[in-house]
């Protein structure tokens, strides 16, 4: 009886219970059906709580932000370059561009580096060393962002100031720090997807006379493609959403940066810098900024799902 509960799906438990009733002298020590239902209810409740929290936050952000967007007009909110809350001018164009510029410039160097690193760890390094490196990279992901920001402020910003000019607080500083921060995401997920390519692919390719490098390029990377795209997009999501480290090293001026040495403000920075004292329309404008950010992230997630589906089409 006890065993049956352990592997009991609810349907199985129901069946057991009815059998129990039909048996004339069957003693019921406990009621499996109620326990099943209780556990099911608890699981449902936890899932519902998590989903409800997300839905409420979403509704809240949009409810607070949308009225302001209607007030200023969507076009004006997104394309107006002037962010000047004291004058009632709420245009996030500079921050929108800022977020995109910082994110893309971090991806430019972190993606090739991360994927190459993942290939090295998964395919070229001896398995023991590859695993060790992989674990170290995962450790890197656990470092709080403020520590990365602090490192950037103390090391990278002064380095840029002395060697490249400007005051150091810049797109470049942000791109370097963000790149370092998203490397673990890109490396771990790419590495996992390369490692999960079936050994038969590699053997099949080598058995045809391909070299190791040809096999990596011709079979292993294409097979791991959807995982690698996921890695890039999750890294990108993390870069767009990152706040603390970016605020600390980018200078935060509300202008479209003229060069990689110019200061820049991202959408996340905009929210965190002004939320302390904002009220009324100003506060609503920050929520609206959050809403735009939210839509960005949703789009990225959709792209991930589509790319994974496209990958499955070809896999076994």
């Amino acid at each position: 009886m006890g065993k049956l509960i352990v592997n009991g799906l609810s349907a199985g438990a129901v069946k057991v219970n009815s059998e129990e009733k039909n048996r004339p002298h069957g003693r019921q020590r406990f009621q499996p059906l109620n326990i099943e239902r209780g556990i099911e209810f608890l699981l449902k409740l936890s899932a519902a709580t998590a989903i409800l929290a997300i839905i409420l936050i979403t509704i809240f952000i949009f409810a607070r932000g949308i009225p302001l967007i209607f007030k200023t007009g969507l076009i004006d909110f997104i394309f107006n370059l002037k962010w000047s809350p004291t004058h009632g001018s709420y245009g996030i164009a500079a921050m929108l561009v800022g977020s995109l510029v910082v994110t893309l410039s971090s991806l430019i160097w972190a993606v090739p580096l991360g994927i190459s690193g993942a290939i090295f760890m998964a395919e070229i390094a001896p398995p023991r060393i590859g695993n060790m490196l992989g674990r170290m990279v995962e450790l890197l992901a656990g470092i709080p962002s403020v520590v990365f920001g602090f490192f950037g402020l103390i090391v990278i910003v002064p380095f840029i100031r002395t060697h490249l000019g400007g005051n150091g607080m810049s797109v470049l500083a942000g791109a370097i720090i963000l790149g370092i921060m998203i490397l673990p995401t890109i490396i771990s997920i790419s590495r996992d997807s390369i490692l999960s390519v079936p050994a038969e692919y590699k053997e099949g390719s080598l058995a045809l006379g391909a070299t190791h490098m040809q096999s990596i390029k011709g079979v292993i990377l294409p097979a791991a493609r959807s995982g690698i795209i996921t890695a890039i997009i999750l890294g990108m999501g993390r870069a767009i959403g990152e706040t603390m480290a970016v605020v600390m090293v980018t200078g935060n001026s509300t202008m479209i940066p003229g060069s990689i040495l110019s200061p820049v403000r991202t959408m996340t920075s905009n929210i965190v810098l002004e939320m302390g004292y904002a009220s009324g329309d100003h506060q609503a404008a920050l929520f609206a900024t959050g809403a735009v950010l939210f839509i960005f992230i949703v789009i990225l997630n959709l792209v991930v799902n589509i790319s994974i589906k496209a990958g499955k089409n070809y896999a076994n």
Partner: protein
Amino acid sequence: MSQLKLKSENIKVFYKDFQALYDVNMDIEENRVTALIGPSGCGKSTFLRTINRLNELIEGTRTEGQIYLDERPIYEKDRDVVELRKKVGMVFQKPSVFPMSIYENVAYGPRIHGIKDRNRLSEIVERSLKAANLWNEISDRLNSPAARLSGGQQQRLVIARVLAVEPEVILMDEPASALDPISTSRLEDLIAELKKNYTIVIVTHNMQQAARISDYTGFFLNGQLVEFSCTDELFVNPRDKRTEDYITGRFG
């Protein structure tokens, strides 16, 4: 008696401390099917993989002895493994089609060996698919994903992929073990046809299959080649007691 294609001399294989093969000596003739039979873990697949040096992929593997392909030693310091594997193709147990289109699967081999011309590639793809008895079934959907083919079709696609690099020897590692009876019999017909142009070495669990398709059979047990002779002779008149026990189903 036809010409000698492969000759193995005292082949020993070690996985770290474990010895997987003990002094295997075997002469494999050209344009013949040679079957390797024996219970699981007896070393028949290991022996097969010494012929294209695929065992080297597994860390801690050591091979001693020598195999000659057309009288040229395979285990030689400056032997080009790429060139060896071009001559000695391999078909695996699980149909390992690559995650790309049917066309790309077949064109993969010629491409890595430097053929870029589109017309020539198409020609090779068509010829290889025809030789693998697959062309008629899939000629209208060369660009669809290979993974959508049935298991038997996938295995014939893998054979087409091997044929596309124009090998001389084809190694098959239990190619029919994942296939249904109809696909298996089509594969066996294909092997009989391929024999005209290629030397085939096939590992199989299935003794009836070995008896049906092969000219020579080797029986492996615990890393040793117990008996090697003409298929008819081995099955009808085994010299070794252990071979007799195995083929009569007393163990294995």
